[in-house]
């Protein structure tokens, strides 16, 4: 029997971060921006395992010891100096990703959680993918044309295309040194990316 524990969510996320931390931040130089820190459990564990230079927790919900702000807005501003960006959203990380890419000035490791919840909003399609995401893969019109009861057939294949399209936008701003995904049985995707900005990219 498999016992139900919170570690179900935690383990693949931790293993992914451990891999990149060992490979790119073993020298203790990691300056972490934890964009959707929630309970802070993930980095509470990682900070026990790795020496890091600084840790900055941000969340839209107030809590002692962290900044209450929309982290996508922080990432959209040039000048931050963190080299580990953790975007552990429960829904879509792509708004953060798009905001962050133009402002990366140094080699940076990014963690993305691509979930399902909270993707829905007032402008979302019935499959919970925002119409804007359908639009970036050119599928908005066809998605709108499909009868609502059968629209879910587009869900999975389109979601993968949307992720691939967003990820590839990194190539506009520099080089993707490495990208790995933690393989799980979950529908949620856990992705780690090592980015190197091009010479003309923003400097902090």
């Amino acid at each position: 029997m498999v016992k139900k524990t919170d570690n179900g969510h935690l383990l693949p996320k931790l293993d992914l971060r451990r891999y990149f931390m060992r490979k790119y931040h073993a020298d203790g130089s990691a300056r972490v921006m934890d964009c959707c820190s929630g309970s802070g459990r993930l980095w509470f564990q990682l900070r026990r395992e790795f020496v890091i230079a600084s840790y900055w927790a941000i969340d839209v919900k107030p809590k002692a010891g962290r900044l209450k702000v929309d982290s996508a807005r922080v990432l959209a501003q040039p000048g931050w100096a963190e080299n580990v960006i953790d975007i552990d959203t429960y829904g879509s990380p792509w708004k953060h990703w798009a905001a962050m890419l133009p402002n990366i000035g140094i080699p940076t490791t990014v963690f993305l959680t691509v979930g399902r919840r909270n993707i829905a909003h007032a402008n979302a399609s019935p499959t919970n993918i925002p119409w804007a995401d359908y639009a970036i893969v050119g599928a908005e019109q066809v998605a709108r044309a499909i009868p609502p009861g059968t629209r879910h057939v587009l869900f999975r294949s389109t979601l993968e295309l949307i992720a691939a399209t967003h990820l590839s936008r990194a190539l506009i701003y520099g080089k993707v040194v490495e990208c790995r995904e933690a393989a799980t049985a979950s529908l949620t995707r856990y992705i780690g990316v090592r980015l190197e900005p091009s010479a003309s990219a923003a400097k902090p």
Partner: protein
Amino acid sequence: MSTRKKSSASARTAPVSTSDLAADARNPRFMSDVSAAGLAASIEAFGDLSGIVWNKRTGQLVCGHQRLEQVHGKWGPQPIEIIDADRELGMIRIDDDHCFTVRVVDWPQEKQHAANVTANNPKIQGEFTGDVVAYIRDIETLLAGAALIDDVLLADLLDDFAANDPTQLIKIDVKPPPAMTWVLIGIATPRFGRIAETIDGLGRVPEIIIESTLNDG
């Protein structure tokens, strides 16, 4: 990729015997002999404790506390319709999809308490087998489309099974996907069979996505 979904269109007639109630051959649940014996003993001692059960001697619920709380939270207090006065069986009927049986018993408080803990005892419940992953995978797009995959915590369940395995980190080759041209084709269902193989063949061509479904919505 080709995914064809068929609706279970044929409505079955109402069962007249428990022998009409066929088991789901893929039911991803397992019950040990010890648990099964415990469940049998519970049924023998208390009857069916799976719905809302109310003890008229104490005026208290035996079981169904959480269920009733959710019903009240969503729909407020509801009338109870008598289904079988002799057997004191009632029903909260909100709509066709939301009906809850209410069973009335007349027990001393000790028996009520014994039934309460028995009804919630995980030791006499089944457990999921590893087959549950494939079972959920087969319906995940439908569930995700209805936002159910997260809302009823099935994604968490999948994560629990994943947690038992060491995490493999798969390399992703980041490159722009091809620009897609999307074509929506409607085919009269009676004609679909003739060209299904052609469509499946097309779906095996790289960078072509074919998704098909019956329009049952």
